[in-house]
Structure formats: structure tokens, C-alpha cells
């Protein structure tokens, strides 16, 4: 578990992070989102004991990162946003170096190294020199090194930045399976679809502050965002708008054209209510060919938060 309280990081007179507080529970994947310079990397580095905050408290698995950094480090696995590796080491030697440095010995060390290489899909390249690896492969080697000592808290800064689509899917599966094992994952990314697919909790950062955090549903509720239902028709249905306005939890969102084959409506209710709405539409004779309750997209939220002036979030 990670607890961040009132974290403040200054670079001279510039406040990179200001009074940031959030918690990441065990088994949860928390995604930090924000534009460049929002302070995401500073937060991750401070949790990883690599940056001394100006003020605040960071607790990792019950250990204070500021006062007991040595103890906290044994729980942490940190992967930075660019993949430096020891060029002249073989991939397995690179992982083995860190396995030894984290105190793994004997047969257990060998097993852990092989496991981490297997988990990251590098077992076929374990004897290659790191300098021969592509950027994406280096990223995998770095992830293997991060996982080798079985950290209970993973800090991943832009983990998918250099990966191809297949590798991204693999990474997502790895992260989700780690979370299922009870590990705490905190990641930052610019790739919003990756965040959406991987994380169960989100934190939006802007100018060093946490603008909004929680699950997507919690954020939706907090921001009073309405859900959208897309209704598809095989052919235009002229009375559709009248029928929609007769249903209390619906209102037309985008389309006012009576000849449209697709109409988006704002919906205020849960999934059961949505089923009742569909039933009403069918009973009213509307030939519904598609009925999709659109989930909130991280991208939409991001753009929405980004476009708002500061302090009005």
C-alpha cells in the first residue's frame, strides 16, 4: 500500500508538486495522468526514494520513505521512463545482478531470474547482450529487472512508451496479474487507452496538484457527468424524439435531426434503468438495432479537465 500525504516538491522557487495526497491500496493499479510537467515523474521518484521532497510524508507498506528509505526500498520496484541498461551485460546477467543486489541467493535466485525473464517474454533472448536489444526489448529487460526481487509495490513511469501493440497487451496482462497477486501498482502514462485498460483508479494531475482522483465511476459522480446511450436504427424513425422526451431519465444529447439513423441520449440511471428504457422503446415500436451505454472515456475526461481553467476543477 502507498500513502502519500501533503507531498510538496520544489525545484528552487518552482513548485513541481504541491500538497498532493492520495492512497493506492494493495491489489490496485493506480494511473497518474497529466500533461508534461504536471509532476508525475517527480511523484514517482519521491516515492522511489530518489528525490527528496520539500515536505510531506510517504508511507510504503507501513515504512516511511523519508525516514526509513533503506527499509522501504526492499518493497519497491521502480522502472523509469527511459530504459538505461548495462550495455555489456547479457540480459540474464542484468537481471541476475539485481537479484543478487536484492539479496536473493542460490537456486532461488536462478528461479526468480528465469521467472522474470519468462514473465516479460525475454527467455528467448536471455543470452543476448543488452546493447543488441531494441528499445522495446530494453523496456522489457528493465521490467524483468524491476520484477526480479518480487517487489510488493511497483512504480512504473511510462512503462509502455516504447512498446509495440503486442508488447503493450502483454504488459497490461502482466500488470493486471501482478495486481491480482496483491501487489500495489502506481503507473504514469501519456497513453490514455493504456491507462483506461490497465488501471482501476486514476489520478489527474495538473501543475503539481491532484485535480481529480478515484475510479472512473467515482469521478463521473463527483463531476456529475451524465451517461450517454447510443441508439441505432435500421431506418429513420420520425417520432423517436417525442418518445425519448416522454421517458423521464432520458434527454437528447447531440442529434436533433429526425432523419438520423443514430441518436445519442443523455441518461440518468443505472444498468437496470437502462434495461427498462430499452423495453419502453421497443414497446413504443421503435425498431432498435443497437443500444449501447457508452462508458466514460479517460480521453474525454482528460480533455475536459485540461480545457477547464485552473481552480475550477
Amino acid at each position, binding site marked *: 500500500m502507498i500513502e502519500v500525504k501533503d507531498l*510538496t516538491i*520544489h*525545484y*528552487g*522557487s518552482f513548485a513541481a508538486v504541491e500538497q498532493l495526497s492520495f492512497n493506492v491500496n494493495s491489489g490496485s493499479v493506480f494511473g497518474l495522468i497529466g500533461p508534461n510537467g504536471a509532476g508525475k515523474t517527480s511523484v514517482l521518484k519521491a516515492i*522511489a*526514494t*530518489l*528525490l*527528496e521532497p*520539500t*515536505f510531506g510524508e510517504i508511507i510504503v507498506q507501513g515504512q516511511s520513505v523519508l525516514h526509513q*528509505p*533503506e527499509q522501504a*526500498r*526492499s518493497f*519497491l520496484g*521502480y522502472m*523509469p521512463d*527511459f530504459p*538505461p*541498461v*548495462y550495455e*555489456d*551485460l*547479457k540480459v540474464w*546477467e542484468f537481471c*541476475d*545482478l*539485481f537479484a*543478487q*543486489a*536484492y*539479496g536473493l541467493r542460490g537456486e532461488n535466485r536462478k528461479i526468480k531470474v528465469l521467472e522474470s525473464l519468462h514473465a516479460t517474454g525475454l527467455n528467448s533472448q536471455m543470452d543476448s547482450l543488452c546493447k543488441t536489444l531494441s528499445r522495446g526489448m530494453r523496456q522489457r529487460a528493465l521490467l524483468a*529487472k524491476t520484477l526480479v526481487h518480487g517487489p510488493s509495490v511497483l512504480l512504473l513511469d511510462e512503462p509502455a512508451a516504447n512498446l509495440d501493440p503486442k508488447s503493450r497487451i502483454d504488459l497490461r496482462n502482466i500488470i493486471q496479474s501482478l495486481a491480482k497477486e496483491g501487489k500495489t501498482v502506481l503507473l504514469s502514462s501519456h497513453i490514455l487507452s493504456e491507462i483506461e485498460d490497465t488501471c482501476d483508479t486514476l489520478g489527474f494531475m495538473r501543475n503539481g496538484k491532484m485535480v481529480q482522483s478515484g475510479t472512473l465511476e467515482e469521478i463521473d459522480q463527483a463531476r456529475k457527468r451524465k451517461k450517454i446511450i447510443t441508439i441505432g436504427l435500421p431506418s429513420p424513425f420520425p417520432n423517436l424524439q417525442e418518445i425519448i422526451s416522454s421517458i423521464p431519465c432520458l434527454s437528447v444529447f447531440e442529434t436533433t435531426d429526425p432523419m438520423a439513423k443514430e441518436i445519442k441520449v443523455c441518461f440518468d440511471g443505472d444498468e437496470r434503468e437502462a434495461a427498462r428504457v430499452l423495453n419502453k422503446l421497443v414497446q413504443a415500436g421503435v425498431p432498435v438495432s443497437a443500444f449501447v451505454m457508452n462508458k466514460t472515456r479517460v480521453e474525454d475526461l482528460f480533455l475536459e479537465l485540461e480545457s477547464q481553467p485552473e481552480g475550477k476543477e
Partner: protein
Amino acid sequence: MNPLIQRGFRERLRPKNLLASGIFSLIVTTTLYLSCFFDGMQIVIPAQDPPSGVAELAFNPVNGAREAFTALLILQGFFVMFLGTGRVASVTAEEKESGLLDYQRMTPMPPLSKIFGYLFGLPAREYFFFLVTLPFLFHCVIVGKLPFWNILHLYAVFFCSVLLYHLTAHVIGLVVPKPRAASWVARLAVLGLYIFLPILGQAGVSFLSFLTLLPTYFGKILPHLLAEGTDKLGRFEGQAVQFWQEVPFFNLTLSPTTFTFVMQGLIILSLFLASYRKWRLDSLPAFSKPMGIILFATLQFLLLGSLWPFFTDGQASGLLGRMIQLDPAQVGLPNQLKSDSHPAIAMVIVQSTFFLLSLAAILILINIVCPNPHRRLKGLQRIQRIGLPSIPWLADEAPGALFATLLAFLTILTYTTLHLLAVSSESILSISSSPSSILFPASFLLFCTLSLRAAREQWFNLGFWGFLGLLWLTPILACLVLAINDFLGNSQLMLYVSSLSPVTFIPQLLIHHSPHLIDEANPLVDLSASIQFGMAASFVCFILLTYNLWKSSSK
């Protein structure tokens, strides 16, 4: 095995590398060793009945081995000291820049293991080069009949020096951000600290000589490298051996090897402490305030001990000692100087060396320990949040006024002790007993130290070093131009200009207070006017910088 040492072996000593390195080292060593060995082995026996007789050539392998020993030692030094030092500095800085060092920083290995891992793992190939030279060394020792115990002494000090150089490089790599710069800064620092600084040993500060291998080499080995049948060393060698036979320290006489170990051990300890702090957290300054004070107090103690014999009975070893003993008539002195002024000149040299060395140490410590504007601001932000009235004075973020004052106080204390010692000594006449001879240098040093601290705390690196360059070096360069233009005509102006820089003002100040140096009846220049100007300039500089710092702090 330490994983970082193992990493060094894996990275740089794979079978292919091992073979290539082995062949390279073998070729270089064989060429050098055999050339020196064969050259030294030949003895020309003059013809018995010249001029018709023919000179004969005899071969003595003992002489060959003795001749080759020094060359072999230099080559070994080149491998592990020069190449190894560059490697440690550049890789440390490279890894710091790339972030690899952060991976290591995050591992739960103790910082001491990490430091050892870097020191012995990074130069693995250079150690292998050295290993290849060992058979030649054994040949040298056995054939040359060199005393085994002395060789053991020499190599113990050799490895102590290697550790010292590599540790210096490692700390520089941790501190200097650019890898290529770090590699050269480290090499230059090693040259400066351990080659040029020891030369000051000739100016009475004998402890500085013991930062290198030279005292052990000259004191323990050189007398045994004489060719068979020769029992007299050359003039230079004889003087060097005599200089490094024993170390005068307070009223004691120590062995050079012991003193070298003590000196190098102290520096190694302080470098370990610095790298320990940097390994814990990169943003920490290399020394905390208490560490800075302890280090400086140790330096002052060593200076006091080394200069003690000179200030009690006027005796000194090295070039300074020989200068005191010289016949005044043999040395051309400026007209204004009295002809019996040798001891007085020696006193000015020793006092200037003491002050400049102390000032250099003060500059380095203030640069490291006193907070720059960012760190100072961080401290202020923290106390504001915590609700403390002020930053605890021992904290890294705390203003360094007290720290700088303590450094100046320690220097003044040492100087006063030495000065009073000289005044009370019957053998030393070339010292003034007037209170101003203590008061003036002490006040100047205090102003200078506090100005440095104020400059460090209000400017970043560019401003700080730019200020130093302007104030400390530009006056010297200006004097150079004035001297070339018209030395005699510009001499008074040169005194005024040079009094702006501490490097040239301190000797001026000391010459002014030396009773046996200036012929007061026939002064060519008015030294007291330039002294007053220099003192006033240093005071104004201190006031302006401190006021500016205070103004920026209160913002």
C-alpha cells in the same frame, strides 16, 4: 561475491576481452621491461691500456633488474592509477546521468558495499593489466635482489594510493554531472591533489608530500636500486632520499610509510563519508556541516604539526630548508630587500603557503557545505510548513555563517599559535611581535571567508565561480599586463590592483609585517597604502555581499 564486482568481471573480462587485454598488457610490459633490463644490464669496462686497448662489455642481470624496476612501477601506475581512475570517474558519471546509478541506489545493499563494488568492479580490466605485469615484478625482485619487506611496503602504499585515486574519481563522478567532464576532472584532480600539491612539501608543509607513493619509493626503495658496486646516490636522488627518510611532526619523527598510511587513510575516510552521503541521496551535499568542521580541524592539526619544527627552531626540510642554509651572497635579491633576509623570506613563504592552503580548503568546503539558493529556499519552505522559527543550524539547508566563521576561527587559531610560537622562540628573529601582525591577516581571512559564504548562498555555480574568477584571478592577470608594460613605473598601481585578490594580497600582508625584509629607509613602493586599500576592499566586499544576501533572504 559483491554483485557489482561480479558485474565488472562479466562486462569487461569475458574470454575474448581477457585474451585481447592479456596480449596488449604482455606486449607493452615485455617491450618496456626488456628494454630497460638489457640497457641496465650492460656495463662498459674501460680498456686496460688506453688508447690502443678495446673497451669490453660486461653483463650484470642484477643491475638490469634494478634499472627496470622503476619503469615497471611507472607502467603499473599508468594501468591502475591513470586508466583505472578515468574509468571509475567516467562510468560513475555516465551511470549517474543515465539513471543506472539510481537502480543501484534503490537496492537494499549497504552503501559501503556499493562503493566497494564500484571501486573494484569498474576497473576490473585495469587490474588484469596489472596482474599480467606481476611475473616481471617477481623477476625484478628476485634477480635484482631487492629487499622483499621494502617491496611489500611499497606495494601496500601503492594499493592504498590506487584506492585513494579511484575513490577520488568515484566521488567526482558522483558530483560532476557530465561523464566526459568527470573523467577529465578526476584525472586533473588526481594530478593536482596527489602530484602538484605534494610539491608544497618542499615549502615546509611536509604532510602534503605523503599523499603519494613517492616518499615510500624514495625512502624505502631508491637506495636499493643502486647498481652493484655503487654505494653513492646521485645529487638529486640523495636529496630525495634524505628528504623522505623521516617526517618531522610536532616534536616527533615518524616513518614515511606510517605517515603516508595515516594521511591517505584520513583522505580515504573523508571520501568514503562523502560518497556514502551521495549514495544515500544524490541531492545531499557531499559533507554535512559537522563533517566539514571536523575535516577542516584535522587539516589545521596536520598543518600545525608539520609547521611546528619550523616555527620553533627555524628548521625545515626540502627546498625551503636548503634555502635557509644558503649563503645570502649566492642568491640575487631585489635591491629593496636586505641581504640577511633569507629566514624572513622563508617565513613569508611558509606563512603564505599556510594561508593560501587554508583558504583553498575553506573555498572547497564552503562550496560543498553552504546551501545554494535552491537548498536555502527548500529549508525556508520546510520550516514555514513545519512551523519552526528558524532552520536548525546543523541542517544542510541552514545558512553557513556560523560554519564559515568557525572555519576562519580555526585558521586564525592555528596561525596565532604558530606565530606566538615563533615570537617566543630564540632561534627565529624574522617575525614581528606587534599585535597587528596577527590582527590584520586574521581580519582579512575572516572577511574573505564570510564573503565567500555570502557569494555561495546567493548565486548558483556560474555566479559563484564567475565572482571568484573576477575577484581572485583578474587582478593577477591585470598585474601581469602592467608589469610587462612598465614594471617600475606601474609598481605602486600593481600593488593596489593585486591587493584585490587574496592570492596576491596575503603575501603582501605578510611581507609588510615582516621586520627583516623591507628596507624602511629606502622604500620604492608604499606597501602600507596598498595594505590599507586591500583591507578596505575586502571589508566593503564582505558588507556588500552580506547585505545582498540578507536582502534576498528576507524576500
